[in-house]
């Protein structure tokens, strides 16, 4: 299955793009996707656990199962206000 992954702020700078499509095994979770990305991006590998994330623009837990076409974003520490 394919998901759309969005990157913002420090995560965008670390991976060098703001979005991409990723092919994943069916029934992959957010944690599975983070594990794949952590092998590629040193900043991500330094995180002790999965950072806050959103699936289809709602906050989601690491064990959330992903589906074909989902919009996924891992969120660096937010700093609004």
């Amino acid at each position, binding site marked *: 299955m394919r998901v759309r992954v*969005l990157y*913002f*702020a*420090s995560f965008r700078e670390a991976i060098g793009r703001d979005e991409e499509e990723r092919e994943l095994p069916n029934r992959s979770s957010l944690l599975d996707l983070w594990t794949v990305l952590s092998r590629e991006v040193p900043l991500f590998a330094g995180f*002790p656990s999965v950072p806050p994330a*959103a699936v289809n*623009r*709602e*906050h989601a837990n690491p064990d959330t199962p992903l589906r074909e076409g989902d919009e996924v*974003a891992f*969120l*660096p*520490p*937010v*700093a*609004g*206000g």
Partner: protein
Amino acid sequence: MFLTDSPIDLASLLLEARSSDGALCLFVGVVRDQNEGRVTTSLRYEAYEEMAEEEIERIVERLSRDFPSVHLMLRHRVGRLSVGEASVAVVATSPHRAEAFAACRAAIDRIKTTVPIWKKEFHPDGSSDWVDPTRGVR
């Protein structure tokens, strides 16, 4: 719309707010000239825009249940801001001040913790950092 890339117009925000309610509480966050001992010359706010708008709707919905008498209006700047400019504004109106203060405070606290907005600080020497409010907490 919650996010705006033009300056937050406080006067028109106050005009837009329901004025016959009795109490109006306004919170404005402005760009500070320093952070953690380093001088800041300007900031750039970046947002996951579609999610930020949806998250704000969820916050307003939730606070409308917690404070049924309160009407809320929220605005947040994105893009480059100079020191002293307003980055965020919350207006809470209510028949009574206690609910207006409480809802205003709850709204800004939630904006700071759940809405996907990021802030890059620029320093006089040309360097810049993404602000991480969780640093030292984790």
